[in-house]
């Protein structure tokens, strides 16, 4: 099928969503480096944060092939309103309970999205999806292990985790904010769409949360927190960008 302008715009929007989510969350999670609860976890969490930045780079490179600016320019010189990231990834790291729940919600979404994209008609994206499938699988295993362990831990651990699950859930639903190009993406075989992804994700996480002994929040009474995909962000994104680009901004033309 020949791509029209709308197909290309839809594809770019999809790539920006994914890449921006990964870059912002990768940066956020790296804030735990050196401060993690135990040395082994600190290393594992930092390493996964690094994986996310690496994945975002691969996606920015595809965008560059589609005519967007260089990956570094795209990552380090845009303002908050030019980012397509969802609110979930922008929130400060908070306490470890929140960071783990975000990791669980986000990485299952990431794994399922990548799984769908292993069949996309866009060849470079298909290759990236196949390449990162294993890496992301480990991220979900790591998240599952912690959620399971903390449900079996002290009463305090379980209460705090459940609270974090309830509070994070509306933000997590914002990951699936629909694009204005859903129909084009689906008809061209680029991506199966946010609605389908959300449905699979809900099934996967509710089964896991129930198995671990948590209560799945009620989807019917939860209002998703939207806007990120359209450039409307929380107050936390711009300060994050300022901090992330501080060194780059000293001399944007420097050769690293």
């Amino acid at each position, binding site marked *: 099928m020949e791509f029209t302008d709308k197909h290309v715009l839809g594809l770019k929007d999809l790539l920006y969503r994914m890449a921006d989510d990964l870059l912002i969350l990768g940066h956020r999670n790296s*804030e735990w480096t050196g*401060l993690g609860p*135990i*040395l*082994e*976890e600190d*290393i*594992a969490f930092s*390493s*996964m944060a690094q994986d996310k930045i690496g994945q975002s780079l691969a996606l920015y490179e595809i965008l560059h092939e589609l005519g967007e600016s260089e990956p570094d320019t795209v990552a380090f010189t845009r303002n908050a309103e030019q980012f397509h990231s969802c609110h979930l990834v922008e929130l400060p790291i908070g306490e470890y309970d929140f960071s783990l729940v975000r990791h669980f919600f986000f990485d299952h979404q990431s794994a399922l999205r990548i799984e769908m994209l292993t069949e996309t008609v866009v060849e470079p994206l298909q290759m990236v999806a196949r390449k990162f499938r294993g890496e992301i699988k*480990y991220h979900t*295993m*790591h998240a599952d*292990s*912690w959620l*399971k*362990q903390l449900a079996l831990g002290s009463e305090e651990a379980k209460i705090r985790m459940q609270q974090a699950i309830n509070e994070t859930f509306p933000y997590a639903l914002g990951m699936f904010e629909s694009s204005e190009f859903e129909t084009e993406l689906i008809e061209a075989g680029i991506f199966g769409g946010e609605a389908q992804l959300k449905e699979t994700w809900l099934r996967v996480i509710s089964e896991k949360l129930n198995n671990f002994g948590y209560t799945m929040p009620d989807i019917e009474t939860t209002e998703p927190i939207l806007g990120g995909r359209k450039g409307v962000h929380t107050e936390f994104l711009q300060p994050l960008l300022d*901090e992330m680009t501080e060194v780059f901004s000293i001399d944007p033309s420097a050769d690293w």
Partner: protein
Amino acid sequence: MKIESLDPRISRAGIDENTQDGELKVMDHFQTYEVFEQKKRGTHHVHVGSVHAPNSELAMMFAKEQYTRRGQCVNLWVVKTSEIFVTEYEDADIFENTATKLHRDPNSYKVMDRIKAYKERQKNNA
């Protein structure tokens, strides 16, 4: 007074200078697990180090990032350190004779000549 650091994350955390939090007692540590890595199918698992973890599942998660993120690995074992039975160094004399028991060394077998000759032939044929 709150701790002020060049690292913005530390300043943001608003930690009191006189805080006693975060001091660990001996029993606050997790148990350790020994990690064994297999680089290729069919080869032996080799001991590569240890990790602290609350259970074997998390020990596996930690071992993966700790020991396999550089280089090849196809399989991992983790074993609770306390489950490994060890010899005492004071009993190290039980090993002393080993080096002199040449009849246990495969080099002493007469068949070695034939093996060497076979290998030589293989090499020449290749």
